[in-house]
């Protein structure tokens, strides 16, 4: 019991520190001058993806030994994420092509 609580606590602490670090990394990429725009965008994107993994792992306790429900959740999120992000990129680039 006691040990459980302790490892639980450690997990949250690690998660909090990592999340904060990844957020700061994104801010740094944007606010430090002299970095190429595309490099900064890639860094922000990568930090965001890493942030998702950290929060899943440390806060939502999703791991290799998880249940079927967790798998449902992740797969469905992937499908919808792909639809929303992919759709947006398609729509916006079409608008971009036709409007400039």
């Amino acid at each position, binding site marked *: 019991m006691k040990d459980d609580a302790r490892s639980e606590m450690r997990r949250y602490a690690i998660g909090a520190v990592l999340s904060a670090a990844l957020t700061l990394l994104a801010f740094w990429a944007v606010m430090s001058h002299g970095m190429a725009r595309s490099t900064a965008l890639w860094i922000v994107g990568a930090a965001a993806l890493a942030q998702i993994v950290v929060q899943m792992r440390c806060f939502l306790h999703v791991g290799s030994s998880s249940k079927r*429900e967790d798998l449902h959740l992740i797969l*469905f*999120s992937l*499908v*919808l994420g792909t*639809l*929303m992000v992919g*759709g*947006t990129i*398609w*729509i*916006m680039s*079409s*608008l971009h*092509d*036709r*409007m400039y």
Partner: protein
Amino acid sequence: MADPIFGRLDWTVTPFDDFFRDPSINEGVAAAAASAVPLGAVAVIAFLTWKGLWGPLWRDWLTSADHKKIGIMYFVLAGVMMLRGVLEGAVMRTHQVTALDGGVLSAEHFAQLFSTHGTIMIFFVATPLITGLMNYVVPLQIGARDVAFPVLNQISLGLTAAGAGLVMISLVIGKFGTGGWTMYPPYTGTTFSPGPGVDYWVWAIGISGIGSTLAGINIAVTIYKKRSPGMKFLRMPIFTWTSLCTAIMMIYAFPALTVSTAMLALDRSLDFRFFTNDLGGNMMQYANIFWMFGHPEVYIVVLPAYGVFSEIAATFSAKRIYSYNSMVIATSAIAVISFTVWLHHFFTMGQGASVNAAFGIATMIIAVPTGVKVYNWMATMFRGRVRLSVPIIYLVGFFFLFVFGGLTGVILANPTIDYQVHNSQFLVAHFHNVLIPGVLFGVLAGVHYWFPKAFGFRLHEGPARLEAYLWFGGFSLAFLPLYWLGLMGMPRRSASYDNPAFEPAMWLAVVGAAMVVGALGVAIWNFWASARDREALACPVGDPWDGRTLEWSIPSPPPEYNFYALPRVNTVDAWTVEKAVGHPYEMAPRYTDIEMPRSTAMGVVIGGASAAMGFAITWWIWWLAALSFAVIVAALIARAFVRETTRTIKAVEVEVAHRAFLREASRTPAVGRDDEIAPDNLGHARPAVPA
């Protein structure tokens, strides 16, 4: 510059001083509407004080974490908002018959009316109605004692009520935005809408949207984790299936709304440039993100209505639902496909033809699963012993009207046609045609169906039938002529028009709107009259319709812990099978102690603080915004230290209560379906046919 204490609030913000300066009909309507809010509030406060109801209201309702009470409170909230929404619709229609070359209301006032009407109807009527229905019914149908997170449930309700409160306050203090229910920038940016109106919308929607996301999480987890023993997924009632799909859709759709309103809020309050015309803003991205929520939302509100119709078709035809599996597949298909069609709300925004074609085809495809369902409902009724009572009247009305509305949707899904009729009255006809016969008829049928479960007495059948027919006729008159108006070229959101040919249809529409107001009046009267005659309408044994699912096996109203002993389920329509071949109304082999959530004020505190925060930001009262936010954070932290969150009900107590109920059930004569609406129907059903 804003005042440090009162922000941009001062004494000129109410409509009353405008009325004194300029006593026209236009200002009179605004002042009358603005007086209704404080007068209504005072009336409620006086009534509660006179009857000494403050204590019970606080103890038994506002702080209760019981999913049944929270569901009912969602309904009360939605009912109050619906009263306002429908009256606004009627005011707009009345204005429009006078609007040939002018009209009694100013264009600005008309714009506020359609903006608040649309906002209220979608976010504070349709959404809370279905959330309340799921809240009430789902735990009962799956044999659970409560939802998975009872306190979170309370907080969801609090956040929704906070949003609704902000919209109500905007009637009296300041003005609501005029950008329609979607509030598209750049018109709603600070350049073109500097006043507080759009901020009211942003915070009302931002706050209540978070509440809806949380409600979705709660219901989905409840269905995943709290089903009673033996209830596999494919044994769940169809209403629970539609609720599961709706809840999952809420989890994924509402965050898009939160994001788009948050970005608009950043633009407005902190001078960001997401959606501005200049400096790199892109207002088309707003439409894109908003409708990523907006389209799923229409299926979020209609899927539970489909679920209600499924329960009703089976129960009132005394047959099991036709093709259960295809119902489940169709529901799940809708849930996924509805995330692939959002662009049909902006076909004319300028993207290329291939994009439009793809989304147009996806839109047409989504009509297929709904078509499957309509055939299934009809096949369920086919050769059943159909009782033509209120829920079936709504269902048949839905067949006619909803199919029509759905077909006009398929017409609109063709981008080339949409280019002609978008933003016209054709569209207004279409979406009311799916929202009213779909969502509203479904919820009204569901209210009639589950009301006896919730309160222990039925509603009078006669007035309820009159109400149903008034809704059917009123809707048809108020909206079907608009298809024609749209094809004639009348734009939506028109405060006035110059073509006299539009006038006759406008007259038809106002008659229809009056009938709908009449329907609402009959509904209110019927609640009151049925409560007055509750002795004659009582059905304490709890099964007045010869129901098929678990919620009909328990008394009406149910005990706070719902089930004396958790039922074991080994088929769909478990209660029907139990009545036909099993042992209904028997003692359980053993009883256990039951843990129920304790009451807490979390919902009230967080809801109240959120409303204060939204109000403060709208009026630039920064100290109050910071203070309210601090209260929210502090309340969440304080809650984490509360250790006694549940209270135990002793097994013996449960056993005694169950024995008393069974004695009452065995004393009560069973009635057949011919006497369903007679006073003899005390809720003990004589099963009509085996399974």
